[in-house]
Structures are given as C-alpha cells and as structure tokens.
C-alpha cells in the first residue's frame, strides 16, 4: 500500500455526559494511505463525525493511538495538514465569497497577493469563478457548499475531511458535486475522508468504504472498491457498482442485527 497518512490503532472515545458515559468509539483501527478516498457510512450516532473530529484534533480520544502524517493530530493541525468541510457550509454572512475563501489564508498569514491568487484558483476549481464578490445569501445552497469546499482547499492541505457535505442538497445537485469532487480528487491527489449516509454516494466516490455501527461506535466492515479511478456517472448502473453497493448494504444490515 502507498504511504500511510492516517493511522488509528485501537481508538477509544467515551464522552462523559450528564446521563452517564457515551461510548462513541470503541477499538477503532484503520489506516488511510496517501491519495485514498475513504467514505464512512453507518447509522446515526455510530461515531462517524466523532472519528473525523479525532483525526482533525477537535476531539481527544480516551484510548488507543492516532497519528496523522506521523504526528499527533494536534501537531498535524498546526502544520495545516487538513481542510475540514462541515455539514453546514458555515460561510460568514458578512464576508463575500472571496473573503470567505481567504479566511483561512488571513489567519495563516499569507500575503495579500498570495491570498488573491489562491482564492481565484480554488474558486475556479469549484466552478465559482465570477462569484467572488457575491455575499453568501446571494448563492444557492449547493453553491455555498462549493464555496466552503473552496475554503477548505485554499491552503492546500494534503488531507480533506468532509462531514456529510452534500447531505442537505437535492439529488441532481449532489450528483453534479460528486462528479466535481472526484475530478478534483483525481487532479490534486488529496487524501479524502468523507462521511455520508448515502450508499450510492459512498460507492461512487470511494476507493474504500468503512461501514460503522453504533453503541458502541465501531468499524464493522471495510470494503475495497474494485471500481476504476475514472468514474463517469453511469458507472452506477454497472454490475460491479451494484455489487459493491450490495456489500455495503449487507454490512450495514449486519451492524443493525448486532445492534438489535
């Protein structure tokens, strides 16, 4: 396998809440290699977001080991190892699209010209060229989500962590964005961690699909996709695609049976 980027071994995370401890992650072991596109799928509450947040250093595991680029997640974050895309676009309403994209660049201290150059480049990458001067409320939900992806791409981190980025969008827009995301991934060779609830989306995008199940949150199956890197939208009608989708569905069912 290619160079290891993310390495989780026996990861445990228990939240102490008022209603007692919540075992969000239990014994999660997973390695993600450079250039992998890994999807996380599983019922609500199985710890997908929590795992992604651990990788991002936003949550501290209570057990096990986790390294990102050979560092702790905190160190990796300070080295700008990843861009994070949240479920809600979360653009600042008082900033134009271009200024929103420049937000991380301002914080990281890029020069003005460099900010300009990078904002132009990533806005073009997500097909938002010419919308830089608009305010978020002037854009559709899909465009806003693309802008938030541009924002995560702006500082050229090697890892892209995306938590249900297209969850709130309609099917057609979603298909379109999926296509664009794949093209972007192919061009930039980033490592992507992607949370979704949609089996077709997971299968269409990923090189690997991680199936999780809840209470306690854990990995129940990891499915390597045999699909080629080049994936037109109609690959979803091929037997190979349907076969992978079937295996994911089986994996999800098995998790549920264990649960019940």
């Amino acid at each position, binding site marked *: 396998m290619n160079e290891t980027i993310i390495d989780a071994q026996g990861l445990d995370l228990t939240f102490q809440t008022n209603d007692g401890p919540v075992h969000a992650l239990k014994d999660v072991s997973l390695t993600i290699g450079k250039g992998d596109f890994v999807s996380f799928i599983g019922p609500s509450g199985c710890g997908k977001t929590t795992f992604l947040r651990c990788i991002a250093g936003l949550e501290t595991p209570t057990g096990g080991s986790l390294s990102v680029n050979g560092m702790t997640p905190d160190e990796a974050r300070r080295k700008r190892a990843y861009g*994070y895309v949240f479920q*809600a676009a979360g653009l600042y*309403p*008082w900033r*134009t699209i271009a200024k929103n994209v420049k937000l*991380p660049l301002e914080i990281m201290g890029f020069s003005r010209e460099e900010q300009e150059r990078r904002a132009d480049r990533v806005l073009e990458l997500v097909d938002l060229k010419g919308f830089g001067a608009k305010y978020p*409320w002037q854009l559709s939900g899909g465009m806003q989500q693309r802008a938030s992806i541009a924002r995560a791409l702006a500082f050229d981190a090697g890892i892209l962590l995306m938590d249900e980025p297209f969850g709130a969008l309609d099917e057609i827009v979603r298909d379109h964005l999926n296509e664009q995301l794949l093209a972007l991934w192919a061009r930039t060779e980033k490592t992507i961690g992607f949370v979704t609830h949609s089996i077709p989306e997971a299968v269409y995008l990923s090189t690997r699909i991680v199936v999780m199940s809840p209470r306690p949150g854990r990995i129940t199956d990891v499915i390597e996709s045999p699909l080629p890197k080049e994936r037109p939208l109609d690959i979803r009608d091929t037997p190979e695609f349907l076969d992978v989708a079937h295996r994911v569905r089986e994996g999800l069912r098995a998790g549920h049976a264990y649960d019940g």
Partner: protein
Amino acid sequence: MRAALPVLTVLAAILLLWYLAVAPMNIRGALDLAERSGRAVTPETPLARQDVSVWRLMAQNPGQIAAAYELDRPRLPTPQQVGGELWKTTGEMALRGRAMSKRSLIYHAAVTLRSTLWGFVLGTALGILGAVAIVYSRVVDMSLMPWAIISQTIPIVALAPMIIVLSSQLGIEGRGVPKAIIAAYLCYFPVLVGMVKGLRAPAPSQLDLLQTYSASGLQVFLKLRLPSSVPYLFTSLKIGIAASLVGTIVGELPTGAISGLGARILIGDQFGTPLAIWAALLAAALMAGALVTLLDLLQRITLKRMGMQA
C-alpha cells in the same frame, strides 16, 4: 415610506385620545373659572362640585366644555397648547437669536443631551468590556453577571440622589459628571446583555472551523465573535441610549438642578406651570426618538456595508 403609515395611524389615535381626555380632565378647572367670572354653573360652588363626577359636570354644563380646551393652567393641556409652548421656548427663541438663553428649551435639551451622550459612551464601553470579560472568563461570568442583574433591580430614583450627593462630597463640581454616571448605570446593562449574547452567537461549528485553522484567541475574537455581535450591539445601543436619556433626566430631578429637561419638569411642577412640564416632556420624547432613529439608521448602513442585509 411604507413604515410611516402605521406610525402615523398610531400617532393619530394617540392625538384623538388626548383631545378626548382634555375635556373631563379640565372641566372642573373650567367651571371654577367660569364661576369666578360670574357665569352660572351647576352645581354652583366648588365644594358642591367635588362629589359630582366629571361626566355629570360635562353633561350639566355643556356650554363650558369648550372652555376646558383653553385654560391657562390646565391639568391636561391640549396637544396644540403643548406644541405652542414648545415652539415658543425653542423655535421662536432661536429665531430671536436666543437659542442658548436659560429660558430656552434648546439650551436645556443641550445640557441633557451632553450628559446623555457621555453616559451612553461610558455605559457602552463598560457594557462591551464587561461582556468580553464574561464571555472569556467563566469566573467573571459567575461573579459579575449576578451583580449586573442585581444592579438593575435597585430603583434608579433611589440611587440617583445618592450618586449626586456622593459626587459633590468628592468635590466634583456641577451635575454633569453624576448625571453621566447615572445615565451610564442605566445604559451599560442592555449593552452588556446584548453583547454577551452577540459574542456567544457563533455556532460551535463556526468555532470549530477556526480551530481547524489553529486560529489564535484574538483572531477568533476579531474575525468571528466581534462581527457576529454587531446586530446585537446595535439593538442594545438603541435601548441603551433611551435608558441613558431617562437616567440623565432622573439625575436632573433632585432639587438643586437648574438646567436640563429634568429640571424644567421639576420647576414647572413647583411653579404650577403645566405647559412648561409638558413642553419639556415632549422635548425629551422627541430627543429620544431622534437618537434612536439615528442609531437605527447607523445600524442599517453598517449592516448593509457588512453585506448582512438584502
């Protein structure tokens, strides 16, 4: 201008009610006056009239109702009388070049306005600083917030004379400083509450986003918390400036004050010139309206420039 219609409707309703109220409020005074000038009224003596309701008095002396609208010292002056008095003590004096004379309401309004603005600036600064401290420190949140709330339960009319006495004990000349302190005392609270809310407005995910950039605390404050709080700030400022004005006027009420709208109200009361009281009241109301409108305008412009409003 669509906003003007409802405002004008309410205004018309208020004026109508006001006019209607003048007759019952002033009928006794009108009858006393008529009796003294030798005209026949029923009942004939003030003593006898005392137990009769104003409605009966009006029904029994329909001829005197008109006089209730023209008294020199009415209990309730008509809007015209108040407007006339206001004009006499402002515009007319200004036309004669005596806008800053001690008899001019413009002079008194200026005195009140100065303390109001000082109190507003002071209160706003304190409110914002307090809010920042509360948002950034749990200890301050737990210790300062209860006191801030308690401070607002103390009636300002009880506190104002104490502040005035204290400040003169400390050798501070004049009323300007204590008045500004009283105004600030009323103003800081809405600003504090609004700013705490505004600085806490960003969603956890927005804070997380900045954390993924390893943003510093100062950057989080400047790039996220502060801009998020702007709409809240303006809402509080509008309440705050009105509170400052009330505080200043309350500070002008205790005996000893000779200038300011509050002093005019008090003096009008002592000298039995209701028109002066009403004119000062109206001037205060107009000033409050103007200040709030100005802030509202500033809010619109700011938010528009920030791109936050369509």
